[in-house]
């Protein structure tokens, strides 16, 4: 491994979260330029991320157990859970749509939780394995995670659009709320994670 590059913190400097200006990181200092709080690392990052991941994981259960929406056609209607909806799409032969919904609504939130939990654990254990890969994984998670909201948006639009009384009505189920919560909390969790912690093993702990 090549000699470690000098870091800002080794010079007693920290990058501002807001404008990226290097500011001396002393106590609870603020950025000289934009006035934002200056931290060497996101404060309490591991704890926050882990707590949010746990929360999201807990909410992930009711999000999948409760029906996400109820589609009523001519008085006949059954509530669908997320997986039930996927199943209905598969039975309907709409494989592509089924795969899309399955990825966006089932796989992505779950992987996100797993990835974030894994990152937190690896950071806490000061693992130095595959740091670059882990960083890539984190970035991917952060980018893809928000696409899970597509399901919630779809439900919102459908509920608003399909109000045809007896002919067809779509009503959101309690699962939708939980699912939205899961997605939002995982977004926060990803945001509160500081990927620099992955690399902190190379120097003395800050």
């Amino acid at each position, binding site marked *: 491994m090549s000699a470690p590059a000098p870091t800002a913190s080794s010079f007693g400097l920290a990058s501002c979260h807001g404008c990226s200006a290097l500011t*001396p990181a002393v*106590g609870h200092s603020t950025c000289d330029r934009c006035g934002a709080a200056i931290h060497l690392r996101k404060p*309490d990052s591991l704890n926050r991320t882990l707590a*949010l991941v746990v*929360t999201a994981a807990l909410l992930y259960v009711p999000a999948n157990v409760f029906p996400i929406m109820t589609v009523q056609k001519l008085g006949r209607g059954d509530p669908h859970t997320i997986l039930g909806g996927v199943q209905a799409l598969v039975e309907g032969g709409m494989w592509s749509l089924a795969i899309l919904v399955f990825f966006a609504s089932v796989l992505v939130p779950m992987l996100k939780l797993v990835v974030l939990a894994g990152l937190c654990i690896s950071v806490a254990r000061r693992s130095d394995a595959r740091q670059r890969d882990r960083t890539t994984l984190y970035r991917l998670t952060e980018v893809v995670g928000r696409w899970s909201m597509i399901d919630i948006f779809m439900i919102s639009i459908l509920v608003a659009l399909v109000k045809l009384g007896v002919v067809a009505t779509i009503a959101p189920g309690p699962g939708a709320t939980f699912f939205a919560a899961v997605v939002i909390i995982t977004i926060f969790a990803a945001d509160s994670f500081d990927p620099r912690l992955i690399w902190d093993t190379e120097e003395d702990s800050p």
Partner: protein
Amino acid sequence: MTHRNDRKPEAAELRKSRGISLVWLVPVVAVFIGGGIAWETLSNQGPTIELHFEDASGLEPGKTRIKYRDVAIGVITEIALSDDLTSVIAQAELVKDASPYLTARTRFWKVTPHVSLSGISGLETLVSGVYLNVLPEAGGDPQRVFEVLDEAPTTAAHRGAVAISLHAKSVGSLGPGAPLTYNGVRVGEVEKHRLMHDGKRFEVDAFVYRRFAHLIKPSTLFWNASGLSVSLGAEGLEIQTASLGTLLAGGIELANPKPAAGQEPVGKGARFVLHASHDEARKVMERSEGLNVTVEALVGSGIAEGAPVYYRKQKVGHVGSHRLSDDAVAILYQVHIEARYAPLVRSDSRFFDASGVKLHVGLDGLDLDTGSLASILEGGISFATPERPGERAEDGARFALHHDAEPEWLAWTPRIWIGDRPEQRIDHVVDVPTTRPRGLAIVLEAFSGASVKAGDPVTYRELEVGTIVERELSKDARTVRIHAEIEPEYARLVRSNTRFWNTSGIHAHLGLSGLEIDTGSLQSMLAGGVAFATPDEKGTPVRPGTLFPLHPKPEKEWMHWSPAVWMGPGEPSRPVEHAISDEHRIRHVEAESVEPELEVVPAVAIDAEVAPAPVGAEVPAPRAGFFRRLFGFAR
């Protein structure tokens, strides 16, 4: 930048977080929320039951609902075949509150679209799919396994309905759902029927809605009103059917005979006889009210079943049935008298045959002896009770049926209370032949009585002044004696020298002067009769019973006789000819006005010769003259 570098960067303050970060409150809150919802879900989860079906048609797991009063209280979650493949077992989840109602008495049934003649039900299931209905009933042994019925239990839709069972020899077109009607109002339904153990009768299970349950008394009568009952009688064509639905789907009618009024309604499970027809039920009903007597006739006279029974031409009952007596000598008519009229029948009442046509067909009118046209066609029985009525007739009393009524029977008008309390009544002057003031009775003797018969008129100048009462052979059988009665006011017209002749038929005389036809009025020509004339020099008034000879035809001179006879008790100054009849006078005037025009015709000469017709004097009947003129023209 340099000024910053002047500041010696201080070592970052390193704060190790001790204890648990506040951020962990977030998952704790999530746990509470999730746990709360999970607990709520779990605690709301009702009991799971097992339902057994014959087949699973229309059932879908997770979709088929269980409803009570159209509120979903559960859903079928799983459907599987039983191990022996004979039935379908479904698991269903019910709401939490359902637990106390899952007892051995609770029944489940499948609601499917059902179209029958008595209605369409379950139509909503065409769209919403099959669902299960439940009739929860608390208070039985708890149960978790249920057999699902194919059809709704009858009491389901009608809580508090009273179940009854009816025994019938045949059920006709009665089917499940057929209505029970009371005076046309639907009061219940047939549930099902089955052959009884003896293999001869059917048992029909029916129920009566709660609000009509009070109608069902121990003596309530039920009869099968299925189909159409058409009876063609003298009273017209009668078509009986309860309703169009009943006509097609069958139905049961019920009625309460009078004795039922005071009875307590029956409870569940009461047994009744289902009569095959209204008639049959009516007979049973009659047995329980009114009076039933037997009338014995030696000669059958076409009295039909259902024929009316009259009392003074008022229908008071009818003939129930008739049969030969056991020794085949008499015909026994079962006569039913309506309850109200039962007191009219006394031990000394006389029954007589009122059937057939008992009218004298004469041109002077129809003398109807029958009650109504119906009795002519159907036959009928009349009865009369003497002025001093005897004991009230017992139920089942026997009477003889007389072929004809004695005239005096018809005059009987006993006073018998048949109402609840005496009512104000107008005193009637009863028109009875026997009470009529008697006129002058005379006897006419003829060699032949061929065309004169009882009831024929006795005329004086074409005016009816009396009637023939009867005719008989004289004691020595040489002549016929005809008894006539002249009405009192005309009695003085008959004198010792009065001549009587027979006006019956047409007397034609063919002579040299042509065909001479002499006849009285058209009526007397066809109906026959006796006419008389009194000479101008009239004899003395006669006593009743005086004998006169009856001439076969009048002498010509008799026609010219026109004696003045004072008949009334009033002033003698009144003109005689006017006293006879106004009508006659008018005819006379008409004849006068017509005559001059016809004078040119030769036939009139005969007429004139026969009747010189002095002004103001009587002329022979215009009609007689008309005939003469008619035939005179023909010549």
